[in-house]
């Protein structure tokens, strides 16, 4: 299932997938896969993404 919350949070911060990927130390394809729902990130990566986007886990990853 697509993670539209992550995509919109990233867009709100005016970050590209590449920029967010660089902030959290992963490849652009990984961010793309998370947004498309093709990959379930570990809790560590979820926390890193939340910190980079100033969001909570609930806001980005809880349905």
């Amino acid at each position, binding site marked *: 299932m697509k993670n539209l919350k992550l995509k919109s949070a990233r867009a709100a911060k005016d970050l590209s997938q590449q920029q967010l990927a660089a902030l959290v130390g*992963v490849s652009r*394809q990984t961010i793309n896969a998370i947004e498309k729902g093709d990959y379930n990130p570990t809790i560590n990566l979820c926390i890193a993404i939340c910190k980079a986007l100033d969001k909570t886990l609930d806001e980005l990853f809880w349905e």
Partner: protein
Amino acid sequence: MNTNPYMIGVCVGILAGLLAVLICRLAGRGRCAKTYDERQIAAQGKAAKAAYYTGMAYAAVCALADALLRPTWLTVAPVMFVGVILTTGVYAVFCVLHDAYFNLSDSPRRTMILWLMLTAVQFLNTWSAFSDGGLIEDGALNMRIVMSLSTGLLLLLVAVIAFVRLTLEKRSARDEES
């Protein structure tokens, strides 16, 4: 003194490899460290599994072919080498297709140029081996041809797939930006 050109080649190759690693370590100071993210490491695990099963299937097919056909021209060495190339190829192609081959600090373009240069060297070696003798030498497959041709084909295949994958990836990144 008895000098075996093959052994000299092996020794020079090992020394050159060690020297390259040493220079890389000293010059790069950690830049050589390969960093993959968690999705890439998971994909590499799946690639290793696929390569393992391919190796098992290949061994079974070879054993069956040997038991049924008993080809005299097919010796153990080329069969083993092609098996190694096959499993390595499955691993590499799987990783490339899942964006898990190049690490976060790799330069794919430089790696692909290196692959193409090595492919050219392997094909030159194949051509040279064909010129020296045929595909069958002393009733068995010419190991020099098998080694250089299979390695060259593997490198070319991986380079072409990586090029197509990276082109698609660039297009995807551009679409995402716009």
